[in-house]
């Protein structure tokens, strides 16, 4: 198995492919180029990105590239399927909570002053419209979106498809959002370490995945101090504030990486009542949640993906 690892999109990219290096290297190069191009297009921290242009055009129709149009279409579908728990239009609340720069910049700047008010959040994402013939997107006036998490899933999946032209088995991870294609020879699946949310060097379980995607959302990552409060990036769309969650992290498996990412966020916010309902009505979905004491729970099928060392 050959690997290519580097930092992009403020996170770690891991690319794995089976075969000899010389035949896979052009695929690795192509994936690097694709990810760099996507980062410049979907970042909300770049003033010249396509996403920033879309956010500036809220209230008007915006002609999007095929990639952005496809991603927004998936966002709107997943917003509806998760009953609004997945909502990237929480961007104003996220910025209000202090996540207004990249995480690297926030961490290097230390504590930020507290804001005196929290604007009420009322999502209007469902009022967005798409025109497939013109590849145009309409965001209601004032609506701004953050594609951070779901873009990573989308990019991982598309990059894996690109890489599959060079190998029979490959996987691409964008910050732990991983898409798999093909199974390595002599293996039952791809082994993936489920990290302890409190200490990323420790492993809670080894998952054995055969295809599709996994993604994990956690309130323990991307934390910062805002005034006298510890904030995190999982915003509850019902309140507009960082979510108070039953679990510390949720790992989701789904046939598509965008779905895995959206459901990981939705289940983390919704907790067990909403989680079991959403899982029950969504074919192909499994999840493993990490309780505050570090123990794991999930639906019956989730046990099947946990590797049992002999």
């Amino acid at each position: 198995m050959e690997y290519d690892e580097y930092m992009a999109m403020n996170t770690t990219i891991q690319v794995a492919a089976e075969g000899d290096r010389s035949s896979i290297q052009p695929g690795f190069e192509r994936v690097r180029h694709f990810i760099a191009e996507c980062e410049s297009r979907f970042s909300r921290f770049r003033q010249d990105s396509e996403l920033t242009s879309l956010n500036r055009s809220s209230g008007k129709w915006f002609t999007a590239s095929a990639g952005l149009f496809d991603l927004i279409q998936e966002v709107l579908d997943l917003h509806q399927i998760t009953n609004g728990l997945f909502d990237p239009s929480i961007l104003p609340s996220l910025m209000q909570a202090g996540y207004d720069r990249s995480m690297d910049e926030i961490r290097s700047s230390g504590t930020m002053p507290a804001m005196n008010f929290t604007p009420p959040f009322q999502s209007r994402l469902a009022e967005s419209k798409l025109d497939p013939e013109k590849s145009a997107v309409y965001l209601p006036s004032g609506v701004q979106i953050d594609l951070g998490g779901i873009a990573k899933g989308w990019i991982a999946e598309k990059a894996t498809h690109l890489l599959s032209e060079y190998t029979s088995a490959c996987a691409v991870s964008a910050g732990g959002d991983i898409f798999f294609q093909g199974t390595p020879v002599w293996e039952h699946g791809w082994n993936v370490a489920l990290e302890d949310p409190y200490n990323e060097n420790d492993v809670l379980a080894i998952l054995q995945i055969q295809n599709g995607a996994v993604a994990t959302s956690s309130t323990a990552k991307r934390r910062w101090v805002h005034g006298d409060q510890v904030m995190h990036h999982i915003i509850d769309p019902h309140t507009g504030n960082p979510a108070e969650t039953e679990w510390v992290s949720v790992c989701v498996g789904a046939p598509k990486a965008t779905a895995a990412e959206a459901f990981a966020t939705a289940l983390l916010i919704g907790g067990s009542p909403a989680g079991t309902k959403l899982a029950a009505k969504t074919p192909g979905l499994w999840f493993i949640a990490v309780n505050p004491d570090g123990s794991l729970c999930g639906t019956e099928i989730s046990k099947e993906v946990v590797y049992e060392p002999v």
Partner: protein
Amino acid sequence: MHKLTKTFLHLYISLISVVAFTFGWAFLAHSQKPTPLVPSQMEISTLNQSALEPIPSLNQYLGQRAVSESTFKNASIATPRLRTGGS
């Protein structure tokens, strides 16, 4: 006579072997293949998604040891290079 019997036995054994192989191959080729468990492809109706259950962690498998890189080395388990934990 002895040579004829020997030749006949050789032919008989060869023929039986070929026939047995052919029958075995045909039987296996047409029997139902074992399907690897692919959770993402399983029918939702066959799954119990109604309740949450405890999932055994690696700690439990390895006897309550903290599961760090050194534990992997001690337990002779390959540390998966791909990791997920939230970004």
